[in-house]
C-alpha cells in the first residue's frame, strides 16, 4: 500500500511530536453528525442522526448503520464516503477469516483488523487518514461488546460512547444514565433520549437510525415504524 509517485508519508511528526493530520481528521469527525452506542447486559444498541441535505433526497436510499457480519454492526461519525471504504474492507476481512477458520470472526479480531487498516493510512505513502470514527457493536461468545475506533487506528472497548458534533453533552448524559445491569430495551430508550438532547428539530423515525443486537446474535437495523414505537414509549 503506497502510491507510486508518493513514496513518502503525508502524515508526519510536528516538532512537538504530534501527528497533525490525525488531529485534523479528528476535527473532521467532530463536525460530523452525532452517533452513539450503549452496551446493555443482554445486547448492544448503536444509533445516529440521519440529517439529509434536502427533502428531495430519498431517505430510503441512505443507510448509515451497516452490517459487517450477521452478528456485528457498525455506525460512523464523520465522512460518509470514507466509512464506505472501511465497511467494505471489514466485510472482506470477516469473510476471509470465516473461509479460513470456518467460524464467525470474533468481534475483537474484526475491530483489530479494521483499526490496522486505519493505522496504515496514517503511515503509508500518498494517502491521508480516514475522516471517520467507528462504533462497532457485536455479540459473540464473549457476550455483547462495543468498540470505538478512531482515525489514528486506536480502539477501546466502551460501556457507552458517543461521537460527532454533540459528543460532550451526549457523553455527560450517558455517564449519568448508564447502569451495568441495563436491559437492551432500556438501552434503546436511553440512546433515543441522548440523541434527543442535542437534536435540532423534530426527532422522528425518518431522521434517526438505530441498530440493535441481542442474545439472538442477529444484528439488525430497526425500521422507521419500530423507531416510532420506541419514540412514543419515550414520550
Amino acid at each position, binding site marked *: 500500500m503506497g*502510491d*507510486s*509517485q*508518493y513514496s513518502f508519508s*503525508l502524515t508526519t511528526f*510536528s*516538532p*512537538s511530536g*504530534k501527528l*497533525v*493530520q490525525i*488531529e*485534523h*481528521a*479528528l*476535527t*473532521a*469527525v*467532530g*463536525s460530523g453528525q452525532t452517533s452513539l452506542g450503549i452496551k446493555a447486559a443482554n445486547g448492544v444498541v448503536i444509533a445516529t442522526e440521519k440529517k*439529509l*441535505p*434536502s*427533502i*428531495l*433526497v*430519498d431517505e*430510503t*436510499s*441512505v443507510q448509515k448503520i451497516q452490517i459487517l457480519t450477521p452478528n456485528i454492526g457498525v455506525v460512523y461519525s464523520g*465522512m*460518509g*464516503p*470514507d466509512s*464506505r*471504504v472501511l465497511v*467494505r474492507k471489514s466485510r472482506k476481512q470477516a469473510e476471509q477469516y470465516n473461509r479460513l477458520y470456518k467460524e464467525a470472526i470474533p468481534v475483537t479480531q474484526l475491530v483489530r483488523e479494521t483499526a490496522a487498516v486505519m493505522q496504515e*493510512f496514517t503511515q503509508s505513502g*500518498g*494517502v*491521508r*487518514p*480516514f*475522516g471517520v470514527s467507528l462504533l462497532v457493536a457485536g455479540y459473540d461468545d464473549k457476550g455483547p461488546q462495543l468498540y470505538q475506533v478512531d482515525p489514528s487506528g486506536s480502539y477501546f472497548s466502551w460501556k457507552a460512547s458517543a461521537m460527532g458534533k454533540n459528543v460532550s453533552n451526549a457523553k455527560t448524559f450517558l455517564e449519568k444514565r448508564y447502569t451495568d445491569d441495563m436491559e437492551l430495551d432500556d438501552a434503546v430508550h436511553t440512546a433515543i433520549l441522548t440523541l434527543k438532547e442535542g437534536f435540532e428539530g423534530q426527532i422522528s423515525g425518518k431522521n434517526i437510525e438505530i441498530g440493535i443486537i441481542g442474545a439472538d446474535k442477529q444484528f439488525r437495523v430497526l425500521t422507521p415504524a419500530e423507531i416510532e414505537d420506541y419514540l412514543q414509549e419515550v414520550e
Partner: protein
Amino acid sequence: MSRGSGGGYDRHITIFSPEGRLFQVEYAFKAVKAAGVTSIGVRGKDSVCVVTQKKVPDKLLDPSSITHLFAVTKYLGLVATGTTADARTLVQQARNEAAEFRHKYGYEMPADTLARWIADKSQVYTQHAYMRPLGVVAMVLGIDDEVGPQLFKCDPAGHFFGHKATSAGLKEQEAINFLEKKMKNDPAFTYEETVQTAISALQSVLQEDLKATEIEVGVVVKGNPIFRALSTDEIDEHLTAISERD
C-alpha cells in the same frame, strides 16, 4: 502545539486542513460551478427525466459534438455536470464498468450500483494524493426491476444519494429550492409532468424562456426502460405545453 496548515499543502493535495476540511474537494465543487451549466433531474411515478443546458460558445462549433448527456448502457443514463474533460473520463470508465458487470454477473448493472461505484472511485481520489478529485457531478438514471424509477447524484466528495428530484451546477441551490416546493407533498408525476417539471425548473432558475436547441433532455420510462435523448421536436412539444399551461 499544532503546527498549522500542514506545511501549506492542504490546498494542493487532498490532506486535511486544521479545521478538518479537504480543500481540494471543496475546490472541485467550485470547478463544477465554473463550467457555467445547470442540470436538473426529476423522478416521477414511472419515469425519470434529466434536463441540462446546451451552451454552444462559438457559432463555428458543431453543436452535435457538445453534449452532457451520455448513455452508459442501453438502460442507464448519465448527466455529467462540470469540467468536460473530466466528464468524458468518468463516462468512459463507467461504460467499461457497466459492460464488465453485465458480462460477469449476467444481468444489467442497476442504477444504484453504478452510482455507488462512481462514488467509491471519487472517494479514492479524495484520499490518495496521486490523483485529484474530478470536477464533475454525475446524475445516474434508470428503471430498476424491483423498485422502479431511480435517480442518483454522485459528487466529487464521494457522496451519493437517491433523489426524488435534484440539481447540479451553477444554479444548483436555486433549482433545489424550486424543486423542494414542487415535490413537497410527494407527488407522483406522470411522464409529461415529470418532463415539464424538469424543464420549467430550469427555465425558472435561468429566468429565461428556453429554445429546444439550448437544452438536452434525457428520459427513461417504465414500459420501455431504454435511456434516450429527446429530439428537438419532442422538446419543442413540451416547451409549448409549458408555455400554454402558464
